[in-house]
């Protein structure tokens, strides 16, 4: 029963569960170990969701598919329509749709007694809400990229560490076997010493011009949606398409940094460091309200000599995905179970017992729940997510300033360029501010 004891250390709502399981251990034997079976309601992880737009609902669905290990009790969104859709989705899964609903995350965090929360919001809200959830000592499944600025990211990492919570980033590619296998072969030297990495991310979006200002839909609290971002008139762009506006996101680059750059770091052993020199070119829209780079191409040099090129897939022969080039060959991984190598024999290699074995997960959401129960680190912890998005954000700064950026990955500072250093942070609109930890 030691596992159970460990687990309880991480669950606040386990008072009922502990009584139940002590009295009737034979009825719910496997759940405590997270090994499947149908858990009693009292043993489920009590969860809430902040952000119930398309990605939020997708994550809720993935948690509900985990054979009843999770119970959603509360939902929070600035759009009552999204809340309604989330409830409908939950009902469809066969679970009860009796969740309490909130329009303000502060009230949600104040009133709800949860074990964990899944958060899927536009990037400009990540700093404040991830930090607030961690400060409430909730375990967090948080969407990538974990921050809009380096400063936000540093604060989030501190909050997670300080409160000793379990954190899983939505970088789910880590829980897919082709990415895992590719990274594990690379980190164990099967392509020799890594020299360079190419990361191809999706090409940019098309513009929509400048849609007219329009009335805010009744369901949407527009001012709360904007939050710390500058106040602007509503033009029908909020859900999903916030991705194309710099106040809320860095575009495809920052969206996908949490996937293919994250995987690149995993295989190359760069998970806990960052580049020392970043330079490149961005292509920006000429017209309209979408202003994220539609193409991008930058190069990162690391202290150990590795170079990483990050660009839109149209610029690379290999297209989208991550390609590690070593002195003995290359390995390429991508969505669609893609795993190829310069020599197919490399892919047959067995990783020996004493070699590096990367954490293995077959289900990203299950891995989070397992870690909430066990207290172990997830497959995509916050520090690693911060380092992945840092590459994208530093690339963004290099492109915006048109300059070569020198970065100190230890002190996490831009060296000798105060102008570029201003871009490590974004002022928040009052009254919003990020806690100083």
């Amino acid at each position, binding site marked *: 029963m030691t596992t159970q004891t460990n687990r309880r250390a991480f669950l606040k709502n386990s008072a009922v569960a502990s009584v139940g399981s002590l009295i009737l251990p034979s009825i719910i034997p496997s759940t405590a170990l997270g090994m499947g079976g149908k858990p009693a309601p009292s043993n489920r992880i009590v969860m809430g969701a902040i952000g119930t737009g398309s990605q939020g609902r997708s994550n809720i669905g993935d948690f509900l598919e985990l054979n009843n290990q999770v119970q959603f009790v509360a939902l929070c969104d600035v759009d009552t329509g999204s809340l309604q859709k989330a409830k409908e989705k939950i009902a469809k899964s066969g679970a009860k749709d009796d969740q309490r609903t909130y329009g303000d995350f502060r009230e949600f965090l104040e009133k709800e007694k949860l074990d964990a929360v899944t958060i899927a919001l536009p990037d400009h809200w990540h700093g404040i809400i991830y930090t607030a959830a961690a400060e409430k000592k909730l375990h967090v499944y948080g969407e990538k990229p974990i921050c809009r600025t380096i400063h936000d990211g540093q604060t989030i990492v501190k909050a997670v560490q300080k409160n000793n919570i379990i954190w899983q980033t939505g970088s789910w590619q880590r829980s897919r076997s082709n990415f895992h296998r590719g990274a594990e072969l690379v980190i164990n030297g099967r392509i020799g010493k890594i020299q360079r990495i190419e990361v191809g991310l999706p090409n940019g*979006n098309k*513009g929509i011009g400048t849609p007219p200002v329009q009335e805010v839909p009744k369901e949407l609290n527009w001012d709360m949606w904007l939050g710390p971002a500058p106040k602007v*008139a509503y033009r029908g762009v909020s859900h999903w398409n916030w991705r194309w506006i710099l106040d809320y996101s860095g575009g495809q680059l920052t969206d996908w940094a949490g996937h293919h750059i994250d995987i690149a770091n995993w295989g190359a052993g760069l998970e806990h460091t960052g580049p020392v020199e970043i330079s490149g070119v961005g292509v920006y829209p000429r017209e309209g309200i979408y202003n994220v780079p*539609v193409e991008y191409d930058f190069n990162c040099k690391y202290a150990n000599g590795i170079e990483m090129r990050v660009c839109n897939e*149209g610029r690379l022969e290999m297209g989208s995905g991550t390609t590690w080039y070593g002195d003995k060959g290359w390995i390429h991984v991508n969505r669609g179970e893609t795993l190829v190598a310069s020599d197919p024999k490399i892919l047959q290699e067995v990783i020996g017992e004493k070699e590096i074995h990367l954490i293995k997960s077959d289900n990203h959401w299950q891995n989070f729940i397992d870690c909430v129960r066990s207290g172990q680190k997830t497959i995509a912890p916050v520090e690693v997510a911060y380092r992945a998005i840092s590459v994208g954000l530093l690339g963004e700064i290099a492109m915006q300033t048109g300059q070569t950026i020198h970065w100190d990955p230890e002190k996490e500072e831009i060296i000798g360029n105060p102008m570029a250093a201003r871009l490590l*942070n974004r002022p928040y609109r009052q009254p919003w501010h990020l806690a100083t930890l």
Partner: protein
Amino acid sequence: MKKIQILFVLLAGFLLFQSCQEKRAYRALIITGQSNHNWMASSPILKTILDQTGLFATDIARTPKEGGDMSKFQPDFQKYNVVVMAYNGDSWPEKTKTAFLDYVKNGGGVVIYHEADNSFPDWKEYNEIIGLGGWNHRSEKDGPYVYYKNNVLVRDTAKGSAGSHGPQHEFLVKARKPDHPILKGLPVAWMHGKDELYSTLRGPAQNMEILATAYADTAKRGTGRDEPMLMTISYGKGRIFHTAMGHVGKDETHPATECVGFIVTLQRGAEWAATGNVTQQIPIDFPNVACSVSRPDYKEVTLSEDLDKISKYSIDKSTRYYTDLQARIRKVTGDPAALLELEKKMVQVLKDKNATAEGKKLLLRELAWMGSDYCLPVVQELQKDADLQEAATFAIERMKPQ
């Protein structure tokens, strides 16, 4: 006295003219005079575009009208570094054809422009020079269809006629050889101005490289294939640049040739054809996947025009001038003196009582990261303005030392 002044001005003008002429390293010859398109409009446009590079001194040679006596049409090709074919008409005399082929074989540059790939269906060597052609009874006897399907280059020998296009529309041009000197440094995809999307071209396609394609959407009566738009061909020692774009018809405006993507690829393609290299800088207004960009007067926008438009900006107007300014800032961030000059001009707009609040907000966004102490007092002053208080505060917060 006045006469002397006038003479002096004329002389100065002449000298200036001379010096400009002398600076131009290469000579270009546009050949036109017959076409199923509006050649009277297109030839001066092409000349303007080429002359604008500062590299070319461009002449225009016109053939006689359709059915006219061609025997005297004998341009001295050898005088030129690049010959721009903007011609679709009667056959040339053998002597002229031979002179043209000698010019190309010996290393002369050629640009094939739009309808010129319709011309001379029965002139074998010309078809080798254009690589791909259309219309005028071309068919499988002339060579395969060449296109991309699912990102794979296809040489399709199916039977059928050559040359087609649906209604004119804007379309995305996609680089296939982004590292070729003509495309190097350009976006890998850009929205092209309203144009005919030439499709089902066929021809010998020997020694030909497809630099860029456009997807011919079936919704626009297209082929559902990625059709070649920009090509290079080598013939003997000659270099050929072929652009299938740039339709100029009877309409008053010509969005296809006003498109910055067309202008710049033509300029770069012509230099490459003439020299094998491209030395031209990429202009700040080059379009990308987001939208097409047009130069109705074939001129690049100046900084003062940009600032003037920004000072009149309201939220329903074009943001193009703002994005121009952003590109200008990016170009000079490494040069503190030039950056300060730009900042001073931006601050002038901030001080301008007639400039719009929305325009000033755009400038504050940029000053927030690139502004120096110079702009600070003016920005602080704007904090008192209710419309600008938030944007000015954002700028001041960001300018604080980290």
